[in-house]
């Protein structure tokens, strides 16, 4: 069970980052980005292809996976999203257009996989990078992979950077202002388009980085995005869609319940249940929203913090 928990932690970290990316893009542009899991899938492929070409350690290429996701985000903005925003498109249109982007990215991954196959004779349609991970040691006889610790460190660093960026830099403050009231920000001289590009970059970066982390956990295939899209969205929605912090929490709630839940169910009910694993994130999402309709980000965290650490009010 410990190994399940360890995997669940690393999985949740990747998921949390990707979900935070969805939330950032949604908050500032109102676009529910269906192509997000393809950004994540590209994170897998950036790490895989660079590692296969240049060796070393998969960790060297993680940040590039994130940056590539950021570039995909910017491209999506400039090629598709920007024009629709300018025309005042509604939420459904914005969302549907990203479905188109998703199809293009999915096709591009397959083309890239063929390219790697024919040019370099790699195996891009089924790859396992976890065997190149380092070992941290063992816990009750179970070996602990490096990614468990690294993924958590990355999440902590990203939280710190985002927090600093959003509250200490003028650009970050302008971003929050645009999210709260774009029209008002505009009449004060803040160019909303700059904020939109930045959001797409940040969102894409987190999507790609999430994928880079997950590439050390799961078998890579061109279809990996399809496996991840549901838990990514579930995490973002559970988080309340209007809170980056909430979606990070959502990532952990969804990720841990998915991995631990399916292991327990498999033990109790038998292996046949395993194929229903993708249902767990949706169930957790539904239950959480029934209890907290505004999602985890809508909870009074300030008060909870005071209760927990300052002994009541």
């Amino acid at each position, binding site marked *: 069970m410990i190994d399940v928990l360890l995997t669940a932690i690393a999985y949740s970290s990747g998921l949390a980052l990707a979900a935070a990316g969805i939330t950032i893009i949604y908050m500032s542009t109102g676009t529910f980005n269906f192509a997000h899991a393809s950004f994540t899938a590209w994170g897998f492929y950036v790490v895989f292809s660079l590692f296969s070409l240049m060796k070393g350690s998969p960790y060297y290429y993680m940040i590039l996976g994130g940056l590539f996701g950021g570039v995909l985000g910017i491209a999506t903005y400039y090629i598709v999203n920007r024009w629709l925003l300018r025309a005042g498109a509604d939420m459904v249109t914005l969302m549907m257009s990203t479905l188109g982007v998703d199809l293009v990215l999915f096709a591009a991954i397959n083309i890239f996989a063929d390219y790697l196959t024919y040019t370099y004779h790699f195996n891009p349609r089924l790859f396992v990078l976890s065997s190149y991970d380092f070992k941290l040691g063992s816990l009750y006889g179970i070996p602990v992979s490096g990614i468990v610790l690294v993924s958590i460190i990355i999440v902590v660093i990203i939280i710190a950077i985002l927090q600093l960026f959003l509250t200490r830099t*003028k650009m970050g403050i302008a971003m929050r202002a645009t999210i709260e009231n774009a029209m008002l920000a505009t009449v004060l001289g803040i160019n909303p388009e700059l904020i939109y590009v930045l959001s797409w970059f940040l969102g894409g970066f987190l999507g790609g980085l999430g994928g880079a982390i997950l590439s050390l956990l799961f078998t890579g295939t061109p279809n990996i995005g399809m496996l991840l899209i549901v838990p990514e969205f579930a995490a973002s929605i559970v988080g309340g869609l209007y809170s980056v912090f909430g979606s990070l929490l959502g990532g952990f709630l969804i990720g841990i319940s998915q991995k631990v839940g399916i292991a327990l169910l498999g033990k109790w009910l038998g292996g046949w249940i395993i194929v229903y694993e993708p249902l767990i994130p949706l169930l957790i999402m539904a239950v959480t929203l029934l209890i907290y309709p505004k999602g985890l980000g809508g909870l009074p965290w300030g008060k909870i913090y005071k209760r927990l650490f300052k002994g009541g009010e």
Partner: protein
Amino acid sequence: MTVPVLELNNIEAGYGRVQVLWGINMKVEKGSITALLGSNGAGKTTTLRVATGILYPWSGIVKFENTDVTNLPPSSRAEVGIVMVPEGRRLWPKLTVYEHLELGAYSKRAKEKFHDSLDLVYQLFPRLKERKNQLAGTLSGGEQQMLAIARSLMSRPKVLLMDEPSLGLAPHLVIEVFKVIDKLRELGTTILLVEQNVYMSLQVADYVYILENGRITLEGISEEVKDSEKIRKAYLGI
């Protein structure tokens, strides 16, 4: 005559197919307070929207310091110095007082003068200094209006467009707001003031335009307008 800071020439504008403004001609002279007065739905806010670029006119020209800015987007107009204090003291409830002031000085021109502006604003509104780390959404109505004005001053306006700054405030706060406007004039700020409070506006304004159903029906220096038959009957009730 000097060149007006802001000039609207023959503006026709509206929403969808509904025309709201019919041939508006206005000038805002440097260092003066120009009031645009009229009742609900006359088109005052619409006029300001055209001036800031949130709404593009169907025809007509918007000039800033004698250059045509009709096609300039709102964020660039703020950069050159056309700054608005929007209707209903619009703030960002989840940003702090200080963050509002920082964003007020977002443009490059304003950023260079950030510290001077901050001193000025804290001097005008000492309460904002005390409350600089408070979220704007938790300020009182009067404080919110002061913050909205303070934020706009941080932008170093060359012309300040104020949309009904006294709306919804208790009488003593209304007086407070007009005192601030008077102080701003002493500092040499050029202001276009939109108001329904005709009486108070006539006290501070140098030049007045009366807007009715989207048309300017009367204009003149405020002493003349104050004494005109029409204003006495329709707006001042004397």
